[in-house]
């Protein structure tokens, strides 16, 4: 295994490793931030669904030679819209609607990808290939990160109030539904960026695990956002190190590091305080 000093030396020497590191940090930050809103709105399933549903968009973009972000956005929003439509125009519950729509999109994506096989590598889309990040990819990722930060800064209070109490927000005239679809759009952009580092299958882990870890440490949304972004970035960098030095796939390496940070927090965070809670009898919620 490469030592950390060797990893740093290699960073100085190889452009591809620098690109990987920059991308990994940016993706960790943006997925941590958006992930907070996904888990607070009880939309983990939706996050999973949208991240899978962009697959046909990726395939179509390759086929037509257009930017992946455009193809993915179209299919991501289409999936979000269809999920909402099926749930509100039938007696089916939202999770059922999610299951139907995202699996259908995912299946379509597989078929389209196999048709476009010559240009792409399915394995890389599914599990990420951070060591093959191009300069264009870095630029695109930076633009998405900028959008995510602007979105959260400008709509912070709207995101806060609709996540906490959507009914109240609607009574004073806020277009909660519009904000929901804006969030879904940003989520698809984040998903596409995260494709490079962790791949489609594990995007959901980058959205949920750092945000959930941050949730265990704080009672303030602002702090939670900063913590989740930091944990996302740290997981990405440490994961990249293991990926490079042990030749592991980057996605699983990053996700495992995030899961370990979560596990440690689960045991020692003050809000969770598993150790103290195990020793005294659990309080029955009122």
């Amino acid at each position, binding site marked *: 295994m490469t030592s950390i000093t060797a990893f740093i030396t290699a960073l100085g020497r190889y452009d591809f490793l620098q690109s990987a590191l920059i991308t990994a940090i940016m993706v960790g930050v943006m997925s941590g931030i958006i992930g907070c809103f996904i888990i*607070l709105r*009880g939309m983990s399933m939706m996050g999973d669904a949208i991240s899978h549903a962009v697959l046909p968009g990726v395939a179509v973009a390759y086929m037509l030679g257009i930017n992946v972000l455009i193809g993915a956005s179209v299919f991501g929003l289409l999936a979000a819209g269809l999920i909402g439509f099926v749930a509100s125009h039938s007696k089916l519950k939202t999770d059922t609607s999610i299951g139907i729509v995202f699996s259908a999109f995912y299946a379509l994506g597989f078929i389209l990808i196999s048709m476009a096989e010559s240009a792409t590598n399915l394995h890389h889309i599914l599990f990420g290939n951070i060591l093959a990040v191009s300069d264009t990819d870095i630029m695109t990722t930076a633009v998405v990160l900028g959008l995510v930060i602007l979105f959260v800064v*400008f*709509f*912070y*209070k*709207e995101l*806060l*109030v609709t*996540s*906490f*109490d959507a*009914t*109240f*927000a*609607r*009574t*004073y*005239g*806020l277009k909660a539904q519009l904000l929901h679809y804006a969030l879904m759009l940003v989520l698809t952009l984040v998903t596409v960026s995260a494709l490079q580092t962790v791949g489609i299958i594990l995007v959901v882990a980058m959205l949920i695990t750092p945000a959930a870890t941050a*949730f265990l440490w*704080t*009672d*303030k*949304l602002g*702090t*939670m956002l900063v913590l989740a972004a930091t944990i996302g970035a740290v997981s990405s960098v440490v994961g990249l190190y293991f990926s490079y030095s042990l030749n592991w796939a980057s996605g699983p390496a990053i996700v495992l590091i995030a899961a370990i940070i979560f596990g440690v927090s689960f045991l020692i965070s003050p809000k969770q305080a598993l150790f103290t809670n195990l020793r005294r009898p659990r309080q029955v919620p*009122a």
Partner: protein
Amino acid sequence: MLNIQNLTVAYDDTPVLTDVAVHFNASKITGIIGPNGAGKSTLIKAMLGLIKSQSGTTTYNDRPIKQLQRQLAYVEQRKDLDLTFPITVFEVVLTGTYGKLGLFHRPGKAERKASLAALAQVGLEKFADRQIGALSGGQLQRVFVARAIVQQAEIIILDEPFVGIDLQSETAIMTILKQWRDAGKTIIVVHHDLNKVSHYFDDLVILNHGIVDAGTVADVYRPANIAKTFSQDLSNVLFSGAEGVAL
């Protein structure tokens, strides 16, 4: 005056409210009572524009309510809220300023000061920095009343504010309702039981898919109305003793 005309609401073709016409007076606390499923919550949600109605118009001083959304404050039943949400008591009250602030404006000094003052009015200033899950049911209800205070609305609608709360919270909330009334606001309270009806309210609306009766409490809260809307037994219990005198 808040005026509702020919309001009809149906869920999946099952009519809940049919051709309801009712008005609510300013400077009054008006209670809405009725049996379970009578459409009490539906009435206020339709008024607030939270659910679609098949027909009906709501006006406030002859202006459509849609133009006055910022003049409405709604204190919801607490049950659906996520009490683990990373938000403090103070921040919940501060969200009451969001409507008038509009997009892209952050709450500033004035908004923070108003929120703290509102918390003090309901006796919870000491809890400002607590996470909301740390409060009791009654305290939480007072927080939402404090949020309604900072909304500075002309019409305040409360859905079952007195359910399962302690006496101290009930008194604190009642004090605020009376202050609002004295300031000329229109206060509408959906009430789940018949206890203390004459203690809480000035005016009363009895609802059972349509309006059974409406007017001052003295005119409306009578044995015949309660017997017709609820049951003869309940009417007997509530009005036992002197005929027509509410407990």
